[in-house]
């Protein structure tokens, strides 16, 4: 206002560019905040409902009148949640351990060995990874029925001893990025393939192994189709996802308890994520390789 000279056209141009940048900055961040509310909203409402009393959960009120922390203990009385948690943990931990044991060597061989049919083997891994599990469900189910293992979770755990296509794929994608010189150096020192893998490659592949282990754990923790197919008939062998799916129906429309149980299933996953956020993000990036 105090300046007497009118601003030069160039200065006016940069001012307008700066103004536009500023507007864009605000627009982008406002949009991001709006999206954050949409992404977090459902989790917030689930939590709020989980804390309401029975009657309020049936109304459209959003804020709990009373905070019923007891809901979280009540769900343990209403359903054998501890058994289901135990089963889910057994499934997730054993399947993940078996998967690592079997898939790491396979991925290493695919990434490093030169042999005939190497390309074909890799393409077969991708095919296995992509095909829907329902394609071979009937005969596979009959195999397990013959061994009298239907009704348990073992049909989902035992096959992990024979490698998991998705994990093999991801591990292979990571292992090919490790320069050959490292394993060559180990071989000059007289290490065999197995010792090279254990001593040299595994320590370097730790982030990928962690990511694959986490993915596998999460997959099992989330899995609904597998337990539904094999363990549906025996309540004692249910997992949390089976139990949660049936929870509401057993207890009619007790939305507060249902949401409390839902939170119980979500919470460990979220907590685990915050401890291993980097592992996760890096792992997801690996899945998107061009």
């Amino acid at each position, binding site marked *: 206002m105090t300046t007497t000279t009118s601003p030069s056209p160039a200065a006016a141009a940069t001012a307008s560019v700066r103004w536009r940048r500023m507007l864009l*900055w605000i627009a*982008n*961040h406002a949009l*991001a905040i709006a*999206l954050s509310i949409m*992404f977090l909203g*459902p*989790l917030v*409402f*689930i939590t709020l409902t989980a804390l309401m009393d029975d009657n309020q*959960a*049936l109304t*459209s009120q*959003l804020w709990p009148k009373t905070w019923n922390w007891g809901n979280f203990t009540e769900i343990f009385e209403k359903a054998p949640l501890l058994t289901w948690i135990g089963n889910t943990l057994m499934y997730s931990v054993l399947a993940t351990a078996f998967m690592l044991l079997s898939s790491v*060597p*396979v991925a290493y061989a695919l990434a490093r*060995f030169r*042999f005939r049919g190497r*390309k074909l*083997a*890799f*393409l077969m891994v*991708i095919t*296995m990874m*992509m*095909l*829907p599990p*329902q*394609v*071979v*469900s*009937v*005969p*596979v*189910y009959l*195999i397990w029925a013959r061994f009298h293992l239907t009704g348990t979770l073992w049909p989902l755990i035992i*096959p992990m*001893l*024979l*490698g998991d296509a998705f994990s093999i794929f991801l591990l292979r994608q990571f292992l090919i990025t490790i320069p050959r010189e490292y394993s060559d150096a180990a071989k000059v020192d007289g290490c065999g393939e197995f010792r090279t893998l254990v001593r040299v490659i595994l320590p370097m592949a730790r982030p990928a192994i962690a990511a694959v282990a986490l993915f596998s754990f999460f997959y099992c923790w989330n899995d*609904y*189709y597998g337990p*539904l197919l094999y363990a*549906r008939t025996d309540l004692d062998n249910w997992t949390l*996802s089976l139990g949660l*799916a*049936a929870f509401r*129906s057993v207890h009619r429309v007790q939305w507060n308890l*249902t949401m409390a149980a*839902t939170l119980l*299933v979500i919470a460990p*996953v*979220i907590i685990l*994520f915050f401890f291993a*956020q980097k592992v996760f*993000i890096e792992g*997801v*990036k690996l899945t*998107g390789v*061009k």
Partner: protein
Amino acid sequence: MAAVPLAGRGRGAGRGRRDNLRALIWLSPWIIGFAVFFLYPLLATVYFSFQRYDMFTLEPVGLLNYRYFLEDPAAWRSIKNTLWLVVVMVPLRVLFGLGVAQLITRLKAGVGLFRTIFYLPSLVPVVAGTLGFVYLLNPGTGPVQAILSAVGIGSPDWFGDPAWSKWGLTMLALWSVGDLMVIFMAALLDVPKQLYEAAAIDGAGAWQRFYRITLPVIRPVLMFAAVTGVIQALQYFTQAMIAARVASGSTDSAGSVFTPGYPDQSTLTFPEWLYHQGFRDFAMGYACVMALVLFVVSMMFTLVLLRQFRGFAEEEA
């Protein structure tokens, strides 16, 4: 003189054979797994598709299962629903994921925080997420209706109205877009910055920059996301099953009273009907026909992916 290359070749072949054998040993767990849990079951599926089988009696029926499939209205309904997911849900999810990734790479402040927030829902276990959404969108009790009516808009009966149920599932799919977002973010950050600067100097608009620079660079990733999205849509099972069961208020998951696809078969997906036929009604021969159809269709999309990967595998070999 001629002996030298010969000897060399002989040694090479011997080593090649040894290498092959070693690879075979290392790969053997997976090869066994492939044979037992894929190859044999696939052949058995073909065999059972010509049988009437309920786990007790096996009776060859020729092409009867196939004929029944062509005349089964529920099967066609499920094909239409699964196709809807492929044509509507998958593209929306890819576009939304790309949009969110674009937005986040442009932010100057709070990138880490926003990324975490956007990614979080994709971690929520599917059953839990679906339950949550059925509750959220449930008219009468859910907050979505309360909020919408506060703004003066009515809310549809999402999971109770055949016209809206698949849109409800689509909302759930968009909510959990985080994994795609992370993949796209990584791809967008790979686009060389100088290209944008050069384009800006040439006076290219935002749309032109996206179309001319961003899109060509991220095309392989986009392609990968689209094809895997389609293959996932072909397997779409849990969300549809849970949403239908909870919204219909039907009995426990061990009971057989449940008719899938509520409301009015609008969420009945192909794998769901396959599961129902094979493991609820124990029409296993018929389920095998459906499994083969699923196999052929997913194989076609997998081949698209394999073509993309073939060059990749060669590069490394």
